[in-house]
């Protein structure tokens, strides 16, 4: 420490070996022991330092007046031996507390006196030879400012001075304990303000002299290394990086690299007030703490990520932050020698605070949704649990999307509903969506079978696109029919509505099949197959077939894993009566709410409701939207229906419920709905696949849709699912031909400058065809290694030295409507291994396959004398796709 102890500025030193002891130095030396609060609670005279720790004063030493600096003996024993540098340049060895160590007794009170008195600014024990103590003094015209004392020297051979001249402070000194002959004298006619021994060698001493930093080599004292600078105070070596040194001047800290000592490797941002202390953290690499005068914060500089300084230009990055250990000003601080990031600060009124600098947390989130963060010496990995148990939290959407991408979700264009199975088969909304799309899509594909009706009405297609909401709106010529229960011979009082549009809607809901057939039986059977007994029963009931409903319930009860209660429900159903005031009706309408199945609730609501008032069914929110809509299409009048559909549509849009796609279709409304779905779930994957199937003109061009698509592509890239991404792009370009990217790279001939692939480009007959030259056979194959324009040879592969060239397809796939045509292997332009590749930097290259295998074992370009590290220039060059199959 190089502060003068004017009484008001206490400094603090931590014992180098006893981790619970420290000394506060101001006008006297006070030794404290630090303990955890629990063990010292009851004792008096305990000073609390933090919530957990407290200090006890063990000893006070006021024997040494005019203290300017103190240094703690670096060895384990004697424990509390301190060297004190005084204002007159003397260095006194003193101790705190009782020590029974004989060596300590021998050393105690020993004094080291310079030839000419002046202030001792700094002291430093040699870490290797603890007998060596370096003292830095102020300037004297004839004397040296760096004196290295040997504390073991017994005599003062040149102490020819009369005792009264020595003016020992305590007066009881024995002349034998005064040493006047230093081991080394350095820095003549100069001042030394700070000192530290270099760990590189026991005999290297770094000193902050007047206007320069000097490294003294005690093996050859006539030589020194020095650099002119103002930053000469508080020199201190980084304990983790022995070539790195910090020093300061006024408000500025300079960081030096001893291997490149000409100038600081960096200077830290200047503080408005002069610095008083700069210290490297002994427990954490590259962390420097600084303190300025009249400040209540310790400023920390984290040079953790600083690269080793190589060139002049490399400016390492430093993270700067401040910590405030206490409210008052800080007089000084000391890092704990071993406890991580811990320090004790002392304020001018001697109040002390035990403080731990909390480590910055750095966090990294991998693209595969595992999270990792580092704090101090701990690295935490947070991965999603994959137990798959019911209780487990639903997995993150990114995880789901990744799994779905791997299962080729979205790519089944034939059995569209199957995409729901590919998605995992557990999301009712996705199920509804893909079934909706499955029902919608056949209508838009002109080459698939359609109703005659549909074909005649060209505009139907767009109507279908636009969802039930618009279909219903366009409804005209609705007819009513009074229907009765199928087993009843009475004239029913249930009014059912019919129209073309309503049938279409029912078809889209999946209740009735395609074609003129309007029977729900196939649908009921499919529901039975899937074991959706309640739903099947409800649908049968809504179609006024109560017997079929009972039959379904019975079947359900007797099925494997069947619920016997279904029989009870069947029993209840069978008691159905139209009688308005019957007990059955009364009981059913009140007890139905206790049923757990929404479909059963809806069924009884239907049976007990007044004609035309079906809110119990229509607003049974757990009944699938398609079933409610189908129901509405059957039993609501035009006005009621339209109002209901509007209301439901808005509900769905607001909730982002994919079931609503049935109502909105793939229209702008649908995009709105999808937008709130994506906002809610982040599932851009479903959004992309779904909207790609919409009308390219309106929907796909929507910027939101483009944004989802781009994000999904980026996501695939981030997962290194490059093949999946390519697959997606192909899928996309089939549905939206405008998204097909134009060729961006052409290989041009060195001689004629024409693209060597022009023969397969759309441009017809640029140049003469080969047959004109009478080349027989398949000219494109035999002459692949020459330019088709000028017939000069193409460049050679740097590895095989063969001329490059790829066999071009004579029939390029530029047909207008055959996007669906699979590019089978033989139609591909060429094997990838034969492709042209070249480095954009050195312009050397060759066959892609050769290049890849070369760079598997080499870093430099294969062309001799070319030192280009081609592959390393490509940041993704060393990555491998994680979806290779």
């Amino acid at each position: 420490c190089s502060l003068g102890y004017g009484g008001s500025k206490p400094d603090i030193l931590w014992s180098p070996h006893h981790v619970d002891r420290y000394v506060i130095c101001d006008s006297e030396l006070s030794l404290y022991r630090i303990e955890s609060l629990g063990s010292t609670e009851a004792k008096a005279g305990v000073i609390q330092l933090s919530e957990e720790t407290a200090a006890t004063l063990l000893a006070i030493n006021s024997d040494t007046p005019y203290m300017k600096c103190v240094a703690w003996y670096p060895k384990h024993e004697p424990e509390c031996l301190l060297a004190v540098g005084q204002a007159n340049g003397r260095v006194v060895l003193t101790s705190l507390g009782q020590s029974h160590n004989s060596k300590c007794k021998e050393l105690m009170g020993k004094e080291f006196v310079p030839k000419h008195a002046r202030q001792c600014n700094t002291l430093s024990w040699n870490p290797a030879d603890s007998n060596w103590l370096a003292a830095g003094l102020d300037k004297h015209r004839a004397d040296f400012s760096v004196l290295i004392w040997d504390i073991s020297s017994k005599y003062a051979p040149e102490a020819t001075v009369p005792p009264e001249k020595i003016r020992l402070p305590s007066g009881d000194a024995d002349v034998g304990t005064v040493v006047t002959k230093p081991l080394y004298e350095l820095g003549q006619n100069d001042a030394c303000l700070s000192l530290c021994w270099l760990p590189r060698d026991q005999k290297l001493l770094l000193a902050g002299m007047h206007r320069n930093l000097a490294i003294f080599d005690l093996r050859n004292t006539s030589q020194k290394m020095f650099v002119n600078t103002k930053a000469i105070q508080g020199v201190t070596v980084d304990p983790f990086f022995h070539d790195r040194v910090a020093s300061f001047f006024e408000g500025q800290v300079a960081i030096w690299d001893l291997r490149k000592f000409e100038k600081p490797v960096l200077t830290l941002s200047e503080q408005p007030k002069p610095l008083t202390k700069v210290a490297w953290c002994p427990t954490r690499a590259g962390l420097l703490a600084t303190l300025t005068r009249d400040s209540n914060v310790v400023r920390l500089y984290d040079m953790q990520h600083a690269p080793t300084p190589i060139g002049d230009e490399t400016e390492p990055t430093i993270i700067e932050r401040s910590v405030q250990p206490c409210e008052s000003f800080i007089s000084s601080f000391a890092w704990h020698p071993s406890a991580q990031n811990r320090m004790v600060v002392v304020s001018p009124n001697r109040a002390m605070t035990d403080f731990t600098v909390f480590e910055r947390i750095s966090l990294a989130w991998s693209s595969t949704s595992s999270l990792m963060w580092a704090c101090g010496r701990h690295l935490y990995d947070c991965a999603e649990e994959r137990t798959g148990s019911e209780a487990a939290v639903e997995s993150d959407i990114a995880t789901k999307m990744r799994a779905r991408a791997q299962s080729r979700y979205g790519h089944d264009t034939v059995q569209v509903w199957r995409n729901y199975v590919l998605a995992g088969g557990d999301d009712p909304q996705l199920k509804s969506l893909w079934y909706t799309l499955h029902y919608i899509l056949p209508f838009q594909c002109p080459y698939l079978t359609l109703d005659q009706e549909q074909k005649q009405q060209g505009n139907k297609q767009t109507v279908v696109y636009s969802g039930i909401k618009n279909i219903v709106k366009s409804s005209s010529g609705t007819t009513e029919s009074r229907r009765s229960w199928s087993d009843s011979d009475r004239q029913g009082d249930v009014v059912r509505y019919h129209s073309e549009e309503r049938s279409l809607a029912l078809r889209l809901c999946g209740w009735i099949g395609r074609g003129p057939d309007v029977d729900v039986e196939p649908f009921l059977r499919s529901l039975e197959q899937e074991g959706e007994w309640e739903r099947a029963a409800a649908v049968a009931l809504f179609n006024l077939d109560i017997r079929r409903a009972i039959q379904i319930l019975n079947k359900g009860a007797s099925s494997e894993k069947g619920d016997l209660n279904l029989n009870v429900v069947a029993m209840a159903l069978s008691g159905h009566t139209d009688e308005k005031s019957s007990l059955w009706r009364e009981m059913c309408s009140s007890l139905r709410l206790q049923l757990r199945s929404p479909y059963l609730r809806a069924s009884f609501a239907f049976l007990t409701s007044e004609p035309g008032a079906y809110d119990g069914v229509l607003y049974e929110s757990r009944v699938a939207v398609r079933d409610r809509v189908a129901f509405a299409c059957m039993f609501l009048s035009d006005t009621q229906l339209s109002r209901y559909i509007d209301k439901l549509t808005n509900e769905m849009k607001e909730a982002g419920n994919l079931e609503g796609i049935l109502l909105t279709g793939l229209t702008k409304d649908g995009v709105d709905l999808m937008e709130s779905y994506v906002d809610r779930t982040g599932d851009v994957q479903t959004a992309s696949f779904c909207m790609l199937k919409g009308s390219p003109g309106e929907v796909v061009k929507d910027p939101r849709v483009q944004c989802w698509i781009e994000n999904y592509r980026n996501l695939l890239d981030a997962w290194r699912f490059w093949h999946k991404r390519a697959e997606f792009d192909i899928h996309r370009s089939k549905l939206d031909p405008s998204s097909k990217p134009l060729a961006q790279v052409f290989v041009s001939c060195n001689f004629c400058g024409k693209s060597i692939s022009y023969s397969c480009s759309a441009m017809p007959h640029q140049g003469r065809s080969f047959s004109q030259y009478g080349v027989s056979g398949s000219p494109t194959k035999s002459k692949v290694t020459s330019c088709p324009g000028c017939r000069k040879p193409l460049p050679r592969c740097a590895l095989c030295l063969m001329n490059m060239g790829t066999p071009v397809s004579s029939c390029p796939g530029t047909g207008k409507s055959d996007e669906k045509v699979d590019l089978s292997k033989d139609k591909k332009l060429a094997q990838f291994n034969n492709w042209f590749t070249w480095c954009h930097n050195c312009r050397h290259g060759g066959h892609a396959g050769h290049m890849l295998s070369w760079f598997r074992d080499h870093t430099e370009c294969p062309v001799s004398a070319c030192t280009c590290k081609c592959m390393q220039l490509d940041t993704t060059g060393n990555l491998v796709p994680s979806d290779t199959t």
Partner: protein
Amino acid sequence: MDLHILEHRLKVTSIAKQGLFVFTHPLIKLIFLRSRTRCKFLSLTETPEDFTLVLDEEGFKELPCSEYLQVEDSMWLALNVVSNGHASSSSQAVGVTKIAKSVIAPLAEQHVSVFMLSTYQTDFILVREKDLSVVIDTLQEEFNIYREVGGECVPVPSQDVHNGFQKNGKEATKATVHPVLSPLNKFCVMSLDPDTLPTIATTLIDVLFYSSSCKDASHSSQDLDCVKFFSFSLIDGYISLVMDTEAQRQFPADLLFTSSSGELWRMVRIGGQPLGFDECGIVAQISQPLANSDISAYYISTFSFDHALVITTGRQQHSWV
């Protein structure tokens, strides 16, 4: 060896003894209230003739105009030789002696007038600002010359070979042999922790400003043998004191820094008549023989005379006097 041209721009002044009262206030401010002034260079030397005050421009601003104040017209710059580790191990001598051959003599040859000021910490060679180019020209062969600018040392580029032989424009005068006077009183060269300056303030004020009143009575008989000489300097925060043993007794012993050997110095005053500022070669004249005999010396120029101090080891000083 490095030669530093310091930033201080200095005035050399003389305060007449009877006019001291006019200057006590600014002097006390400059000496004791350092935080109130921006003066960084102050040297006050009392001789029987006057008080010589050397101070920088900031300090000079504090002085009132007075008929008792004589000011040398020129602006002076301080030079400082820094050994920078390449210590000439051959000679143990320091101070004027060390630089006699390398600085003093060459400057004397070029007719550059120098004003010497030794302190406890170092030796300053003051030269006129207008002579600076000659100084650099003269010394650049021997030294790496740096100029301090804003606290940083900036190397002074070596001047190109000048057109013709550049002289100071002064007549080469024959070296005058000046009478010397060696009083009997012995002197101490001391320093002080600036923090303890307030502790000795009253003593220092007493010695500086009231010495004549008491001394006249008690020491009238010794007047012929002893010469009043007291020097105080406060330069860049460092204090240096030169006083005779008589004055030293008035200070508390444990506060003043001196050598552990307690060495005492004898003084030689050079000049019978005031020397003026134009004559060159006086320091050279004195330091040359000292250098030849490797005797360390302490040298303080004042407004009228030069003072050289050497350590009393009996024989040495007489051999050159």
